[in-house]
């Protein structure tokens, strides 16, 4: 088994796919960091060092929009939650918008969790089987005296190892680059977590502060779980579809559809059983409302796990049974 995994691993590295992903991160993160720097310079100009005034103005502005009839009820829910959270921060004299490399990393990964990271995962996952078909090397692989499921399993293990590598390197690259802009501090800054949402109300009885590095660890763990699910789905598509391009398109379409759905699906409640609506696990940590009412962390984890297990099942079933013609 181990020689097989080793073989796959070497193939993955030699194909330079992983380096492309690192390159994408290295190119994109400075752009976001620069944009963020502009934003914080802007507010620095208006409010000086006094973040409390800035937070209070944010609360007032959101309270104003609550009274407006033009603002959809959905948005009002978000804003009510925002107001309560900001008041909580202010009451405890914790700056929620403190800039720093660590804070930037937290914010960036929070936003990247549902689309950007899954896209990177697809970059390695979507062609792991189909590329062997496109190039025809799959026949050489299968003529060896090894059971087919072992071959597929070795590919799966390699993929999962790269999922961990991608998530961790996203954090490392993001932190190293944003540190150039904002400084490398902020590991011990307290971050509040534990906001439980009941409809439009925020239950603050469970709110507690954790040091930011612990928060990052939890966030990374959740993103990792999401990434594994995405990887397994991409793996299945890669087994089912012959061409690499087609399998990438299929996965991308699903992910983007998920992003659109999360923004507008709250009326269609059964959409919550789709995997792509459940990718925002980090929202539960940050206390932002779930896209569809009734979704909890347990629910999302279960849905993702079911999708992952089913796609694994399908992958192995198809790969061991199918005829490899050309």
């Amino acid at each position, binding site marked *: 088994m181990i020689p097989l995994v080793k073989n796959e691993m070497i193939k993955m590295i030699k194909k330079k796919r992983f380096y492309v992903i690192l390159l994408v991160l290295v190119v994109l993160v400075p752009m976001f960091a620069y944009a963020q720097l502009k934003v914080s310079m802007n507010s620095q100009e208006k409010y000086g060092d006094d973040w409390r005034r800035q*937070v209070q103005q944010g609360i007032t502005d959101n309270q104003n929009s609550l009274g407006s009839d033009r603002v959809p009820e959905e948005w009002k829910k978000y804003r009510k939650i925002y107001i309560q959270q900001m008041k909580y921060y202010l*009451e405890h*004299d914790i700056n929620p918008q403190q800039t720093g490399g660590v804070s930037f990393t937290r914010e960036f990964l929070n936003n990247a969790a549902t689309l950007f990271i899954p896209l990177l995962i697809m970059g390695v996952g979507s062609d792991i089987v189909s590329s062997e078909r496109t190039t025809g090397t799959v026949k050489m692989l299968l003529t060896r005296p090894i059971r087919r499921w072992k071959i597929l399993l070795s590919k799966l293990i390699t993929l999962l190892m790269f999922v961990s590598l991608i998530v961790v390197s996203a954090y490392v690259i993001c932190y190293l680059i944003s540190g150039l802009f904002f400084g490398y501090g902020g590991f011990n800054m307290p971050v509040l977590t534990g906001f439980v949402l009941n409809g439009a109300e925020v239950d603050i009885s469970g709110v507690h502060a954790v040091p930011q590095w612990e928060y990052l660890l939890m966030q990374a763990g959740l993103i990792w779980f999401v990434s594994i699910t995405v990887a397994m789905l991409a793996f299945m598509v890669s087994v089912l579809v012959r061409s690499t391009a087609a399998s990438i398109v299929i996965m991308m379409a699903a992910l983007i559809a998920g992003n659109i759905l999360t923004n507008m699906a709250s009326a269609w409640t059964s959409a919550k059983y789709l995997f792509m609506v459940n990718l925002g696990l980090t929202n539960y940590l940050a206390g932002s409302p779930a896209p569809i009412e009734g979704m909890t962390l347990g629910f999302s984890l279960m849905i993702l796990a079911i999708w992952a297990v089913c796609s694994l099942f399908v992958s192995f079933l198809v790969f061991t049974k199918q005829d490899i013609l050309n």
Partner: protein
Amino acid sequence: MNSTSRIWTTTGLISGVSTVLLLCGFLYAVKDIMNPLGAPIFDEQTRQESVLPTPEIESVLDVTAIGDSLAKGTGDDTGNGYARRTVQILKERGDQSKLVNNLGINGLTTAKLIPLLDEKGVQYVLKQSGVILLSIGGNDLFQETEKFQSGGELPTEMELEKSVTEASENFKQIVKKLVDINPDAQLVYVSLYNPFADLEGIKEIGNKAVTHWNSLAMQTMSEYKRTLVVPTYDLFSNNGPLYLSGDHFHPNGEGYQSIAERIVQGLGKSVVE
């Protein structure tokens, strides 16, 4: 060791460590979210202690606006309202001034303003202001008339009178709280005008209610030092079409500008000297 083995050992090792780390993070996150009561850091005692620091006042002419839509500047196309316009005029004449915050909220009534003044963030802002511009009461009196504008019943004189007395009781509390929060600030109340001065039918009772309210407000304010009531009633009596915005209720940019000029006149020549 050849190059492929080296790749295998390093990559395998790094990804193994990463996986263990991420798995720990995942389990920790699930435990923490599912069972958030695990470690409440803020018990009641620290909650009491965590008071916001008292801010420094930079200039005695630093302005905070608080109250209803007039304080916010609704109707002003530039979005400045009288708060920002006051600061502009002060700056133009050479004084050091800035807008600390604009805490105006559309539709705020006297009853809703009282709990707002207990919030720490609001108090923090008020404490660092040299000038507090208060505008409140309009919604207590005229909320009913919005219905009238859309074809509903006219408020009777009795009803308006009842709103005036109720709101003026709240107003006393508001002024007391504001003075308690920041006794050194110049508290400016921008009194009411009758937005329906050119509408027959409601003009008279509106005038009556507004004048009554304004005199009660003046009375309340005069009980404290460093208070100021800025009249706007006369500004809008004959200038409705000129000074009111499209909604026929809020001032437009020019209306706010003339209120701001009044405020600056009331503040007097440079306080700093």
